[in-house]
Structure formats: C-alpha cells, structure tokens
C-alpha cells in the first residue's frame, strides 16, 4: 500500500525520520514509564527483597518456592473460576443487547445510555456501593428479598455465594463496554449484505450465524482478550468487597501478588508471581491468535 507513499516521502530531506518523530513521544514514554519499570520488576523476581536495593540474588528461588506455596493453587483456581464466570457472560449479554439495540426499537438510545452507565463508576466506588447493597444484614438486596417474603441470602458471607456475587458485580460493570463495542461493529457491517440474505429467505438466526457472527469475529477476539486481561487484573472490587474471603474463597492471583508485595513485604516473590500472571496472559493471547488464523483459513 504505502510503497509509493514511502518513496514520495524519501524524496524529501529526512523523510526516513518522519515515522520516528511521530512514534517518538509514545516510544519515549513507553521506555521511561513501562519498559524500565518492567525490566526492574523482572530483576526483582530473581531477588529476595523487601523493597529495592537491598536485594539478594537467588536465581529462580522465587519461582521454585511457588511450587510449595499452598495458597497458589487456590488462588489460580479462584482466578480461573472468576475469569470463566465473568468473561463469556459479559460478552454474551453485551452481544445480545447490541443486537437488540441495533434495530429500531422505541427508546433505544435511552437504553443504550443506561446500559453503559455502570462503566463510568470507578472500581473503588463500585466496591463501596456494592458491599453496601449486598450487605447481608442491612443491604437493600436482602431487605428487598425479605419484603417479598423470600429468605435472606448470604451474598458475601458464604464461600460459593461470595464468588458468585463478585461475578455478578463485575459483569454489571462490563456489559456496557461489550455492548458498545459490539454495537459499533454491527453498525459497520454493510446492511446490503443482510438485506440480500433476507431476500434470499434466510431466517434471522441464519443471517446472524452466516453473516454477522463471522464478521464480528475480530471484535469478539479483541473483546475476549481485553476482558480476560481485565478479569485477571481485577483488584479494587474484590479488595473492597470481600478482602479475598470468606476464607480463601475469593482470593485471586492478583490479590495474592498484592499481598506478597505489601502485606508480606516480599517484593521479589510478588514480582515473580506477577510474571507468572503475565505469562498466562501471553500464552492465552497467542493461542487465541492461532485459533483465529485457523478459523480464517477455513473460511
């Protein structure tokens, strides 16, 4: 595409430098505030240290001691449950809403706005509000259930329930985002395609399956990766609402990273745990991309 463009650019003095000037500010900021800290953190993961500077190099010691840490298994399992609970749900509901609101419907712009509203609330605020609402003894959720003659539920106070409640809360914050992104993607599908299919007599479901869904695949892929990243890094809401409890039932990996770094003052170990989290994400992303490529080849 841009071969000719490039030649045209080169004709001018310093043409080759142009892209570097455009990308320069971002690259410099990236270097100073992302790359350097990441490199330091990688260094930390091979040290036994409470903060910085006083570390002792212990090679893979931090990674080795993970294998004998009983909490890690629990934290990984909880992370998996939390991620599987939040990601597909938010995306499915977001997609359903996007489809519903992508057609003429009375009040659809109002609905659109309202579904997106939870996204404007900061994580800390969501945590504070939701622990208030789901408080077992004076929260409005249980007060309502009781007023309706139903029993009170242990929203945040029984192990299984606490995780479910967190999932509900996080899904609540994510639906709007997924919906908007899907809505954008749906609107950019040429309507002629669908109209042609409709004339051919394809049912709505068939049209969705054969036209919309394949065309949404890249969007789905990006949303999936973003949602998994969000879920694996979900900290504020869990920290405020359950503190990882009751027991260990909502202690997820990122929670444990925080705890190792600051409660236990084991910065090196925390960095190592964080790198494991990053590795999980990278593997997931690469697998996802491979699956995508396969799917594209099949088309």
């Amino acid at each position, binding site marked *: 595409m841009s071969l000719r463009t490039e030649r045209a650019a080169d004709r001018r003095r310093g043409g080759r430098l142009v892209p570097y000037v455009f990308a320069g500010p971002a690259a410099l900021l990236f270097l100073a505030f992302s790359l350097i800290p990441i490199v330091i953190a990688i260094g930390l993961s091979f040290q036994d240290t409470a903060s910085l500077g006083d570390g002792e190099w212990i090679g893979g010691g931090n990674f080795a001691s993970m294998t004998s840490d009983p909490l890690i298994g629990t934290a990984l399992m909880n992370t998996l449950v939390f991620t599987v609970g939040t990601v597909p749900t938010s995306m499915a509901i977001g997609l359903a809403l996007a489809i519903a609101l992508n057609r003429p419907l009375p009040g659809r712009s109002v609905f659109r706005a309202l579904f997106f509203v939870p996204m404007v609330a900061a994580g800390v605020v969501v945590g504070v509000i939701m622990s208030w609402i789901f408080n077992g003894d*004076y929260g409005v959720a249980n007060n309502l259930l009781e007023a309706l003659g139903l029993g009170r539920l*242990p929203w945040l106070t029984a192990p299984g329930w606490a995780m479910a409640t967190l999932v509900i809360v996080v899904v609540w914050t994510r639906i709007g985002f997924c919906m908007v992104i899907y809505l954008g993607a749906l609107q950019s599908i040429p309507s002629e395609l669908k109209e042609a299919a409709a004339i051919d007599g394809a049912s709505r479901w068939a049209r969705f399956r054969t036209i919309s869904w394949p065309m949404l695949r890249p969007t789905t892929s990006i949303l999936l990766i973003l949602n998994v990243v969000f879920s694996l890094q979900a900290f504020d809401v869990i920290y405020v609402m359950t503190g990882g409890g*009751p*027991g260990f039932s909502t202690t997820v990996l990122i929670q444990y990273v925080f705890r190792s770094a600051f409660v236990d003052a084991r910065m090196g170990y925390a960095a190592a745990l964080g790198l494991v989290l990053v590795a999980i994400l990278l593997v997931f992303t690469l697998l996802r991309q491979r699956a995508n490529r396969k799917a594209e080849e099949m088309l």
Partner: protein
Amino acid sequence: MRASHPLSATAMGRRGFIALAGISIAGALAACSGSPPSGTKHIRLSTWNIPTDIASYQAIADAFVAKHPGTSVAVEVTTGQFHQWFITRLAADLAPDVIRITPQQIGRYAANGSLVDISGAIPDDYRGDYSDPFWAIGAREDGVYGVFQHTDNFITYFNRGVMDRIGVTPPTALADAWTWDEFLEIATETKKVTGRYGFGYGWTGPETAYRWMPLVYQNGGAFLGEDGETPSMDTEEAVGALAFGRRWYEEGLVSTGNLSKTGGGDVARNLFLTGQIGMMLNNPESMAQLDEEMPGEWGTAPMIRNAGEASDLGGNALAVTKSSRHPELAAELVAMITSREQMRFFCHEGNWLPARSSLDAEDIGYAANSDTMQRFIDQGATIPLPMVRAQSGEYFSSLNAVFADYLDLCLIGQLSPRDASRQMMEAMRSVTAN
C-alpha cells in the same frame, strides 16, 4: 530557589543566569529535595485523614515552629493501603519525616531500618509514665523506634432496653466482668429479644483481624511464645478460644456478615444502631454516633474475660523515618507531641485515650461520656505485654494476614477449631522461617 538568589537576571545576561539557575537547582536537589528555600528545616508529618486530628497536629506543630525558629512543619494524610504507600515512599526515599503508625504496623519498619532510633531526643522521664506494654510498642533492644501517642481497646457495649427486658444488670467493675459462659448465656437471651442476633465484634476489615487476638489471651493462650517469635496457636488454650469463636456463629449469635474480611465499615456498630444486636465488643470510636442516634439508650461494661483478662491493642505511635533529612529535629517533634501536656490536648480534642499512665479522664476533661472514657482507660491496663510484643514484632503484618485467613475459616465453619489451629501454625511457621 531562583528568587532567593542575590543576582538579578538582567545583570548577568541570559545565558549566565540560566547556567546559574541550573547549577543552583541541581545543588538544591542534591542538598534537600523538596524542601522550601532559604535554609528552613522542613518537617512533614503524616496522619490518617481525621479532620480533628489534622487540626490538632497542626496546632502542636505551630507551637513547635514557634519554639524552633527556622523550621516549618506540614501535616499530610496517609493515602490508600498503608504498607503499599509506605514501602513505595521509602523505596524512593520520600517518606514523611514523622509518621503516625499503628502498633501492628510498626514492627517491620523498626526491624528493617526504615525507622530511626529516637532515644536521644526522648526525655528520660517519659519511660516512667508509660506501662510496660505501651512502652514496648516502640522500644526494641537496640533503641526506641516509636513513642505510643494514644490508645484504644475493646469493652462491652449494651442496649439498655434489651438488658432490662432480659433482666440483667451488666457489671461495672473490671473484677466483675462477664466470663465467656455468662456472656454467651446473655447473648442467647439477647438474640431472643432482638429477633436477629445476640452481639457483634468490632472488626473493620482484613487488616483488623488481630482485634480478635485478645480472646486467645483471655483463655490463657498466646499467639506467639515467650520469645515473641515462636508460633503457639497449637495449645489447648488457643484451640479452646477458636472453639469459643466458632460457637458465636454456629449458634447464630453473631451475623456471618460480621467477620474481619467482610467489608463495609464497622458492621457491629451498624447492627447495634439498628437494633439487630443488643451487645457489641468494640472500641471507643462508636460513642459519638451512638450518642447522636440512640442517646441514653446504651451503656458499657468491661470487656469479657475468661481465665484471664485481655483487650484489643488499638491506637497509634509516632515514629521518625529514615527518609528524614533532619531526624533529630523530627525526633524532637515526636517528643513534643507525646509530652504530657500535648497528649492531654490531643486526646481532649480528638476524644482519644492517652498512652501515658498519669493521665485519666478527669485530667483530659472529655466533652462527653467521661465515665465511659475512664472505663476504657482502666480496661487498657488489661492489654497483655506478650500480646503487645507479638503484635509489634517484625513479621506481624504477614502473621496477621495468616491469622485473618484461618480465623475466618474456623468462624464460618469450614475448618474445625483443631484443623484451623494446625493449618494456622503451618502457615505461621512458613512466615517466620522466611
């Protein structure tokens, strides 16, 4: 910096001025980064965001500055999770000079060199006005790393109406405090009256799990052994305390929403205010709101007891950090704030309990509830020295997290008291072995 320089820009020419400005900026940065011009010694003090206390600290600081010309003091607030905030600032050598810190937080920093020994600035007569437990919070073998400023602890609050209906007259003297069995018996009756639960416990988040530790000591147990290091939650006494705690929830006397990890502020206080419980074990903080919302309807009794007495170790110490450029001056400020006179002022303004033994409720002249404040002051004497040593030890932050985990699992019934004790010991050992 630039303004204070004697030479004006025009006289020197632009280039010279810029060069000089650059040099003086670099010099100033090297000498004392962040400090205001003209050789003023600047001290920063960080406190929790409590408006009254900020005002009190500022008033004391102003008096300090008046006595020490050429100094200035700024009062700041501690943001976010304490350890995260403090570790980060220490790493960059930007921690405030003086820090308000709890006994449970101080141990790590006193042990790892983040706090400075201030024994040189502390007048000799201070030690004599402190009980052994309260002095032990900041004092280590190799120096004094903090001075306890104010304290609080747990006593029993009760709803007068509920007690009248049960026909119980709560004890008033420490010696007559309810024992565990008596207390649970009354709690069972209380539950019948409220229709919900019997009582509540004053945790306010996972970091405050240690507030339950006095129960272990009341039963003659200990969290850590005599040496202040060896985990000792495997004794019969400790297991007995866990079993006692389990009964609270098993018999529905305490709400499962009222656990250290389950957030949302002071759950016990909210339950008490709305009549869902008739008693609570809690600290003095609740009093203002109780006065406002149920005046005359509440009363207090001593903390419960069993084989022994014990209550929660609340309050804050003041310490000087290693980031301080003027540690001697900062230490003098700590000495001034913890002087008898200023402690009286601070406790009067903020409704806190004094850390010094020679101050009582009458000296301080609390605006309200003087009797109750005196009850808290008296209860403070039951805080056991071994518990203070354990909680102000080097690894307590981690140990407290472990305590929170397994106490939680035991109280909600996921682990039997014995299993909870065993697993807690295992986890504690792996912390102290590190």
